[in-house]
């Protein structure tokens, strides 16, 4: 793994400073998990507790989720490069107030694949394809800048492979995966971009999806989830990470990312001032619609 001790130390110091000066009332970061090897979210309110904060390549969680939960408070949040894109989206969508959110941005070396009690050196796929290791928004930045080098492979390769399959195989592919879904909604709830008071898939009136935990409903749920993330998903891949039954959700999100990028030339979270692709239009664009 990349050496990140100094990052841990800098985060701790900054947290201490922010809390003792009263500039923020809460620091959201990472701490060591109960398995002793991976990380989990930490919520620090007292300067003396700042010592438990850590950062290493097991810090995979996107903490933006909690920024929404604690909206209104003045807080500091530890955010990897991709997490800061999420924060931008939340600012764009008026879910958090920039001024009240102190972002401790990290020049992120990428995080590794890990599960309870297990971790290793293998970068997560989303980090293998990452080409923006520097935070898009921050008040304080830690970690050495990372040299961006062009990918020698197509980040969307997996999506395109699937696209290339014959229809029957694609259907079979998704059926076999959605068959395992138990509608625990972990994918949705882990997503920092999902913050609806009452998600449409749980609404009874109107009954958009229906309660049955069966393939049609499960599939509709996943389509809606992915569609509602179209032009908003910043690829943190929390959804896929938390899925207990290993559904390749990134293949759904990345399909939309691909389309949004190709059709509208838009990447979410880079600039909160830019209008989201589904909230704007070009009068003369064609998009293969209308005859």
């Amino acid at each position: 793994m990349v050496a990140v001790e100094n990052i841990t130390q800098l985060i701790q110091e900054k947290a201490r400073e922010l809390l003792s000066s009263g500039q923020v009332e809460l620091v959201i970061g990472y701490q060591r998990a109960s398995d002793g090897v991976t990380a989990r979210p930490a919520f620090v309110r007292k300067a003396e507790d700042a010592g438990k904060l850590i950062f290493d390549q097991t810090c995979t969680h996107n903490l933006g989720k909690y920024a929404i939960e604690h909206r209104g408070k003045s807080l500091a949040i530890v955010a990897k490069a991709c997490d800061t894109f999420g924060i931008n989206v939340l600012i764009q969508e008026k879910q958090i107030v920039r001024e009240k959110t102190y972002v401790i941005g990290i020049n992120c070396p990428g995080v590794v694949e890990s599960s309870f009690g297990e971790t290793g050196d293998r970068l997560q796929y989303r980090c293998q394809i990452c080409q923006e290791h520097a935070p898009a928004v921050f008040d304080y930045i830690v970690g050495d800048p990372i040299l961006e080098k062009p990918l020698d492979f197509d980040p969307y390769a997996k999506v395109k492979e699937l696209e290339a399959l014959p229809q029957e195989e694609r259907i079979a592919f998704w059926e076999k995966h959605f068959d395992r879904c138990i509608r625990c909604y972990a994918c949705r709830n882990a997503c920092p971009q999902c913050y609806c008071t009452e998600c449409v898939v749980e609404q009874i009136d109107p009954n958009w999806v229906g309660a049955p935990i069966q393939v049609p409903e499960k599939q509709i749920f996943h389509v809606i989830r992915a569609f509602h993330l179209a032009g908003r998903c910043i690829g943190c891949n929390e959804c896929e990470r938390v899925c207990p039954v290993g559904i390749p959700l990134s293949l759904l999100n990345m399909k939309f990312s691909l389309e949004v990028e190709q059709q509208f030339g838009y990447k979410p979270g880079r600039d909160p001032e830019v209008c989201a692709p589904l909230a704007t239009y070009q009068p003369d664009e064609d998009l293969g619609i209308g005859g």
Partner: protein
Amino acid sequence: MDIITRESLKRWLTTLMDRYQVMAPVLAEGNHLFRAISSTDEIAWDYYNSVVPPKELIFPLTESLFTLEYQNGVPQIQEPVIDRQTVIFGLRPCDARAIAMLDASFMNDPVDVPYARRRALVTLVGWACVRPESPCFCVNIGGAPNGTQGLDVLMTEGTDGYFVEPVTEKGKAVLEGAELKHTDAVPPEPAALPAFSTEGLTERLPEVFLSPMWQQQVEACISCKICTFLCPTCYCFDVRDRRDGEAVERMRCWDSCQGAHFSKIAGGYNPRATKTARWKQFFYHKYLYYPERFGGVIACVGCARCVRKCPVNIDIREVIQDLKEDISA
């Protein structure tokens, strides 16, 4: 004690398939799950435990309770037929014990008919855990890696086959025709698990209901339903009607106290609006309410699925620890 070689075991299972639907752990895209099998080759012999507990085979994620249909103006009510004899093969003692707990809640008066029907048709052939590892903690909560409770047959993998221990008459019946050989050898003892005690928890939970500890424990909770859906002893469900033209199908689907809207009542009031309140419900149900009703039995079997799969590593073992400290404090 009797022993059966792996080969005869396979033969036996294959013959069972004529009379029974055989469910066993299989590897589905890298996830161990219980599924109906048509060949013993599908069985994941090396599995540790299934992601989704086998309770889903008796208490399905979604089941149809009845269907109401207008037939020339007259409403007709029909219910699904449940008549399939089933063997669940290879489940772990913790999950079998959990099923016994589900039985208590579903089959006591008033009896939950669909559950009872399905349950009556199921025979449980379990596998002892020979090499249990942390975070499993069955031994600390009244279970054992080779416990027999809830099982009809217990099998324990040995060097030259599986030790077979019929537990119930049902178990004996299902073993008919199995090529068992007597042996003097004894099943291997399971590896030891880190020990901690859950003594006195139940009794003292009422005192700590208002402790700030609960809030701290679940600060990171994202209100997903993993812990409850993967819990072998959780059995909450939601009853919904599905309309199809003028026909209505009433179905029940798994639900979870961890879902933000689970407790919402007519008019929109939600008595468990905070995740702390929901988390407390989860814990109190397992460690206080259930025991109060069912002879002090804690409705947790220490399978640690919740620990392994929690997206934010809320570790019930830590909770128990905190609780002890909080109580002693």
